[in-house]
């Protein structure tokens, strides 16, 4: 292959900071640390001036990265997995935090904290194949429940989920916070948490990841590394002082959650989980294995090879 001309470096701001375009879901509480980090000057201290692009649909996230409309993408790990298997040309460089999704069920309709109580029940979702489905398909499988046969899934616009529960069309619903959290608050104790991607063996697995194009890595590995470190610092800040983060993030929250709620959600999410390097690679190997087991991944995909291929060990490469 012809050797490409060495790519242009990232543009600099007037203060000499490196400008990075970051695509992330602004309205999801789990990105609060990143949003707040800019406000509290964490990125500045790493020499970066990020600009945020908000995405709402997976396609948009994938496309902005593929067409280099953004330099960094932050999203649920599950949004990246299948495209990566099919040749999506990005690398995962870091995890930002642990779980942010839950299934809650109605006690009145016979749901208990025992996962097997979900068998034969219908679970409501806002998007029949969104990442809540993707995540819980995996988790249910891990707990011995066939996500396609043992339970039914049904999609509703999110304000209608409580109504559907009341009508007994569904017995449980799955989604991300703050939606699940708020629903539980409103339900006067009827809604009980059954499963979350914080629970069990997933406790220390990353939920959201930082991704970047391979070409972007070639432009300036150092800046990408710096961004990752900044994101980690932000997560640590959040883990230690969630109130500080919530204070600033509140304005971006889509739902009518108050400060306390946001703090509680942030506390529940494991913001001290932010794997990089081999840790990230190992976690992805685990996910890959599970995706293979439930038939999302090809049986021929080797988890070890695949997880190495799609992650980038920024620290190790920095020395060369």
């Amino acid at each position, binding site marked *: 292959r012809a050797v490409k001309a060495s790519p242009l470096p990232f543009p600099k701001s007037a203060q000499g900071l490196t400008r990075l375009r970051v695509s992330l879901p602004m309205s999801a509480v789990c990105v609060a640390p990143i949003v707040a980090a800019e406000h509290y000057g964490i990125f500045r201290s790493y020499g970066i001036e990020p600009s945020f692009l908000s995405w709402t649909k*997976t396609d948009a996230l994938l496309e902005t990265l593929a067409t280099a409309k953004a330099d960094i993408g932050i999203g649920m790990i599950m949004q990246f997995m299948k495209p990566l298997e*099919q*040749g999506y040309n990005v690398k995962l460089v870091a995890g930002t935090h642990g779980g942010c999704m839950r299934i809650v069920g109605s006690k009145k309709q016979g749901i208990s904290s025992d996962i097997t109580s979900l068998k034969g029940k219908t679970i409501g979702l806002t998007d029949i194949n969104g990442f809540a489905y993707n995540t819980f398909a995996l988790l249910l499988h891990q707990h011995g429940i066939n996500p396609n046969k043992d339970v039914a899934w049904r999609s509703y616009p999110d304000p209608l989920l409580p109504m559907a529960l009341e009508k007994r069309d569904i017995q449980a619903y799955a989604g991300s916070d703050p939606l699940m959290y708020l629903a539980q608050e409103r339900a006067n104790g009827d809604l009980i948490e059954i499963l979350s991607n914080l629970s069990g063996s997933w406790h220390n697995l990353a939920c959201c990841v930082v991704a970047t194009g391979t070409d972007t890595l070639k432009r300036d590995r150092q800046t990408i590394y710096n961004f990752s470190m900044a994101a980690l610092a932000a997560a640590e800040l959040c883990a230690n002082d969630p109130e500080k983060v919530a204070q600033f993030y509140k304005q971006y929250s889509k739902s009518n959650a108050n400060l306390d709620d946001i703090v509680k959600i942030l506390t529940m999410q494991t913001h001290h989980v932010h794997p990089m390097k081999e840790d990230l690679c190992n976690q992805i190997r685990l996910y890959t294995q599970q995706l293979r087991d439930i038939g999302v991944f090809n049986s021929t995909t080797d988890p070890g090879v695949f997880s190495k291929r799609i992650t980038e060990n920024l620290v190790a490469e920095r020395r060369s």
Partner: protein
Amino acid sequence: MITVAKELAPHKKTIGIFSFFKENYTIIGFSSWFLVSLCSFFSLKEHNYPGTYFLIWSSLFFSFFLFLLPFLKFTHNNRIIKFVFLHIRWFAVLGFIIFFWEMVTAYAKLLPLPFFPSPQAVLNIYLTDFFRLSESVLSSLLILVPGFLLGSFLGFFVGAAIGWSKEIHYWLHPVIRFAGPLPAIAWLPIALFIFPTIYTASVFLVVISTAFPVAILTASGVSAVETGYYDVARTLGGSPYFLLRHIALPSALPQVFVGLFMGLGASFAVLIVAEMVGAKAGLGWYMEWAQGWGAYANLYAVLCLMSVLFSTLISILFKVRNHVLNWQNDGVKW
């Protein structure tokens, strides 16, 4: 035209399709498919999966088949060879299209993945995800076929009643005029509300999306019957039932089939949407699933499968029509 078969002298036909240019197309076709095979062979290093092997061997086989075609023409005269000869130019161009697609994706990588997968990646889906795809086809057909049949009968009887009886026309025509144009998809929230399961709701939607056009066209057909036919049957002693059964309905059949054609097309749309809402299998579900995981190769694979399946279903409908309406030869062509 008068049948003259008896008086025809048998003669040796000069078959135009075996002309010089057509034979050249076999060479062009051979080359294009051979290039596909070659190109996919060289992509093996990076694309080492069943789809690539399948593409290599099938395109190689097809290219040699095209190469040998001119030599087969005198020995065989079977349907496949005739079909290939008739579409030889298409096959030749198709080879180049796939070659080009292969080049820009698998080889030159000019287009971003996963949005623009290579042909072998799409082919690979059929090989590796065969079970789920066939389950989806089956599941969709289980909604489509009963729904379409039920809707056809319902639409036919309602339409016949409207076309036949002034009284029924008076009461039902306004209903059809207002409810008919509402796309079946608009019924979705109500259907999900009324029906206990997604399956029955989906079947219901297919039923109404078929029944409406069939009813409208059947009613048009029945009410447009030339009165002369009725006169003939009446003088011969036919009862009103005889007139309906043997004059009105057969005479309306060409229109009924236009309605069935419309209804089938509408059913496909409503099927896909209904399955997106919450089915566990089916082509619409698969589409949504593929989109949800960002599995673009799967998305394209299922789109191609859908287009072949739906095209086949329409072809079957037209086969039935041509059989039933063998006395008519100027209807809609497919």
